[in-house]
């Protein structure tokens, strides 16, 4: 029950952030384009809830609007990694001959810490939104391939798939109609985690100054700009960071909750212990 509530809370927070950032132009009192040189680096007040930045822009509005690019990068990276990882994982798990080649390439890619691989790619390609998405997808999809492949290997020997093979069902039908639905839960869970990791990685790359151009507001670029002012205007550094933590935490909670919800082993465990207790109670009653 607690777990369900937690999932609901996480999903609610994410939905709130998404809705707030999409509708921002309708309700924000101080749009982030509003530059006021006289109101530079003001501390949080009733007027500017999160204070103002070095251009006199309202940090609350900026944080809300910055969510757009940040979340966009996260969603696209999660989707692309999921699609690429699922296709390569299905092929590697199903065809023995392709498995060797695909898994060696994946092992090679996983030999780099993900952030470093993305960093090197962005350094080579140049920092903009498209290249960040390419670099992060490249860094994150190998994990998905590995997870999908091992999930496929587990269901590959189940009887109805053997049966489908014997009756001459086409490979594509077996892969997408019989195997894919059975490996969907680890894919969804991992996709949620990749979303979270992509947000953190984009922020780190932008912070290091190799990511998205500072003129595009993302939480990462805001933190990069705030660095110089950290001692005189700490609020400038604190609020975008809090936004990252809340979003990533919600995603991680959701992923964690989904994993538990999808895990039949865990459910059965709880049921069986409950049963055990009930039986005992009856015995001793």
């Amino acid at each position, binding site marked *: 029950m*607690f777990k369900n509530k937690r999932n609901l809370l996480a999903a609610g927070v994410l939905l709130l952030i998404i809705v707030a950032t999409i509708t921002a132009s309708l309700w924000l009192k101080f749009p982030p384009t509003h530059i006021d040189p006289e109101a530079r680096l003001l501390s949080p007040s009733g007027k500017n809830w999160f204070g103002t930045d070095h251009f006199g822009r309202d940090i609350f509005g900026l944080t809300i609007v910055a969510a757009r690019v940040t979340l966009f990068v996260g969603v696209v990276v999660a989707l692309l990694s999921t699609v690429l990882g699922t296709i390569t994982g299905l092929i590697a798990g199903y065809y023995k001959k392709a498995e060797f080649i695909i898994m*060696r*390439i994946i*092992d*090679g*890619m996983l*030999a*780099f*810490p*993900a*952030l*470093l*691989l993305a*960093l*090197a*790619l962005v*350094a*080579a*390609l*140049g920092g903009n939104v498209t290249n960040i998405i390419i670099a992060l997808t490249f860094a994150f999809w190998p994990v998905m391939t590995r997870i999908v492949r091992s999930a496929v290997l587990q269901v590959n020997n189940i009887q109805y798939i053997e049966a489908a093979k014997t009756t001459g069902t086409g490979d594509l039908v077996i892969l997408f109609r019989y195997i894919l639905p059975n490996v969907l839960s680890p894919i969804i869970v991992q996709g949620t985690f990749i979303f*979270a990791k992509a947000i*953190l990685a984009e*922020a*780190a790359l932008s*912070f*290091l*100054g*190799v990511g998205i151009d500072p003129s595009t507001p993302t939480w990462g670029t805001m*933190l990069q700009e705030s*660095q110089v002012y*950290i*001692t005189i205007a*700490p609020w400038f*550094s*604190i609020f975008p*960071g809090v936004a*990252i*933590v809340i979003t*990533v*935490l919600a*995603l*991680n*909670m959701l992923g*964690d909750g989904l994993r538990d919800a999808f895990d039949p082993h865990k459910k059965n*465990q709880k049921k069986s212990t409950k049963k055990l207790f009930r039986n005992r109670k009856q015995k001793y009653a």
Partner: protein
Amino acid sequence: MLQYTIRRLLSLIPVMLIVSIIVFLIVHLTPGNPAYLILGEDSSQESIEQLEVQLGLDKPMVVQFFSWIGNVLTGDLGQSVYSSEPVTQIIIDHLGPTFSLMVISLVLTLLVAIPTAIFVVWKRNTALDPIFISISLLGVSIPEFWFAMLMVLCFGVAIPIFPVAGYIPVAEGAINWFYHLFLPAFVLAAVEIGLVARMLRDGMLESVNQDYTRTAKAKGVKESIVLMKHVFFNALIPTTTVIGTTIAGLLGGTVIIETMFTIPGIGQLLIDSIYRRDYPVIQGVILFIAAIYVLVNLLVDLLYAVLDPRIRYD
């Protein structure tokens, strides 16, 4: 065991081949002419051509790859475009700070994570467990660099008890060395602590439900002895793998932390080289880090096989 070791060593060959292809391609992905990018916009045609010959860019890509990999195998990673020093030497010069930082954070991580996990499993049926899960999730949700900024703000600016920049080699005094590295190492460890403690807890909870644990309890063995002898040691085996992932996380994290705390290690070298477009150094550092990571994973796998002989016969 010897056979297993040989098999694992042989499996490294394709992995390192792929790694080197990726590292090689990274520079060749660069849009435009690398020589032009390195020298900048107002360079003469002549100097560009000269650098192209120096870097071997005038030859076909396959030839370039094989001559590069041949040099790498003899330990020659090329020459820095920025300082003209050999890349291998530059990397060796920057090794000390990174190694120190990683050792301290790894020790910190294990020192905090192991007792925490044991305590949480011991009190597993209390409200402590969901609180622990939430904290460990929070730990992996905080951007490292932002946490570093907060720590600098707290312990460098508001209550200045720790230095926030610089590095002192061990040779110049171990206490001072540790004192300067404590804050960055703590920031680096903070993210990993939650992760390692969580995995240890999951592993231990699995052992709690095993037959041997039940038997030990049924025999009347004390709860604390069951927990330490039967549960903890069996959970330790899968946790060796966690150390491998932790080191990967730390390697990635050092890049950010070294830049923030101005520690002259491999990570800062990488970032500086990216700003300078010093491609031979970028290639060298990335290849070096990947090789270290692969070696660490090999050692972890071998250790795993020693601890759990079943693995060897897979």
